[in-house]
């Protein structure tokens, strides 16, 4: 019994709760438990016929299908092709975007010349350009690289431009006073200063690349996760479709994680750069 007194006691937080309760309430456990619970509910609902298995096959059957596709080697092939198209397209778009963004960011003249053109093309949904791209580059790999590259380009370009525009003027003043050449100013000032923005652009660009590649793989190819998804639609093999969707999600998440790690390593000069993440 505690007697009423005039004292206010400030004490360590009491932990009377049983151990299992603390484990359940930890955020890490919640983060894993919530999707698992959703899958279990899905499974039960599917088996009891509450939801139409033609559209939502049970998770267990999807996993069986996934294991089949893995053991036959088919899934790895599709994954590999998509990864290849995203990677090649990404560099095709990101490298010119970074270069042009840096140069334009520091040159009002070039900005005046190119900005209206780029700004006019930007609002077009990139995938709407795909028919034109296929006319120009055919049905093969090139057209897929190009459309992914275009999608990536705009994200990275505008982020780089914003990054250069946000460089503290004083750093450029220092460079000028110390006699830095234009090239030195790009390499030693503009590029590193804009790098956090460039990274954000690259992460957005990867997201766009995945959207675009899945649509582009509908045409002129028999490989890729996008093809897997479209084919399963045509033959009404919904489990394959879910496997494809799942793999696209995993691929996207994996790339984001890898880019986050790369960013933390490259931008170690910025405090707490590592905590920034889109997910």
């Amino acid at each position: 019994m505690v007697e009423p007194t005039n004292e206010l006691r400030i004490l360590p937080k009491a932990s009377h709760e049983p151990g299992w309760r603390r484990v359940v309430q930890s955020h890490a456990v919640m983060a894993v438990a919530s999707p698992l619970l959703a899958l279990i509910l899905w499974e039960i609902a599917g088996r009891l016929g509450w939801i139409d298995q033609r559209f939502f096959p049970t998770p267990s059957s999807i996993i069986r299908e996934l294991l089949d596709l893995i053991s036959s080697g088919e899934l790895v092939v599709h994954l590999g092709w998509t990864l290849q198209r995203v990677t090649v397209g990404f560099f095709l778009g990101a490298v010119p975007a970074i270069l042009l963004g840096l140069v334009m960011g520091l040159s009002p003249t070039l900005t005046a010349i190119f900005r209206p053109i780029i700004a006019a093309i930007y609002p077009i949904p990139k995938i709407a350009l795909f028919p034109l791209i296929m006319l120009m580059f055919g049905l093969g790999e090139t057209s897929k690289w190009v459309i992914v590259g275009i999608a990536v380009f705009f994200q990275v370009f505008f982020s780089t431009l914003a990054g250069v525009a946000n460089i503290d003027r004083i750093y450029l003043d220092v460079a000028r006073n110390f006699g830095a050449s234009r090239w030195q100013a790009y390499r030693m000032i503009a590029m590193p200063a804009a790098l956090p923005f460039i990274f954000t652009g690259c992460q957005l660009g990867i997201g766009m690349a995945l959207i675009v590649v899945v649509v582009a793989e509908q045409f002129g190819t028999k490989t890729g996760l996008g093809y897997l998804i479209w084919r399963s639609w045509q033959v009404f093999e919904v489990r394959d479709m879910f496997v494809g969707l799942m793999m696209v999600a995993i691929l996207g998440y994996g790339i984001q994680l890898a880019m986050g790690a790369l960013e933390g390593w490259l931008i170690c000069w910025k405090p707490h750069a590592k905590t920034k993440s889109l997910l």
Partner: protein
Amino acid sequence: MSDRAFKGSAKAASADAKIAIRQLSKSYDLGHDQVKALETFDLSIHDGEFVCFLGPSGCGKTTLLRMLAGLETPSQGEIVVRRQTQDRPLTSMIFQETSIFPWMRVRDNVAFGLRIRGVPRLEQQTAVQHFLDLCGLGQFADAYPHQLSGGMKQRVSVARAFANDPEILLMDEPFAALDEQTKITLQQELLRLWNETRKTVVFITHSIDEALVLADRVIVMSGRPGRPIADIAVTFPRPRLVHELKAEPEFGRQWHQIWSLLGSQPQALPEKVK
């Protein structure tokens, strides 16, 4: 003490000066209006002189320094700087706000000027180490700026300018944002560094104390549009100790004299000209 009132005569810019300012003025365009930052004036600064420009904020002293640094151009008149050699940079500026690059380690920040000039790597390392040690940064050579305090960051900025070995050092209120103790420590270190190198220094400040402690010569500026109103010789013997200097009666006398000069000036107001 040889204090002389500043008349702004053409004589003031003599031919053998390190820096000769002739009939210089500067205005800024603000939309339809023009604001005059610096009134026409002449001035010369000699080789190896430590000169402080002292004035109220908005008197154009930073503008003058930026022109010397090649970051801005005069509206009228000219600044003639006499070069000793083409091998060394002419000016290096130490800015008021944090200007060291956050993406470079302390060591690379200090080496910046030398890298820009393509100095051989081994020579770079020797010079950088020398100035890191002189500025008390030896232990922090591999740190990134975000790990340093404000005072340490300004030390890096000072080390970067000295390591670049320019003919003229330009300082724009480099210690204004620091606390009093750090400020006095850094002033003392600057005096020591300067004693070793005896470079020409143009130092901007709004602190009378700072000007008297550091300079050979204090140029007192009027409010906007700025122009020199007095040119005061500071003859305390060197090497100087900052805390000892402040106890000198002569220090107090000159402080008061400059205060009266500044007080006689109307507060800086933007002046419109056609």
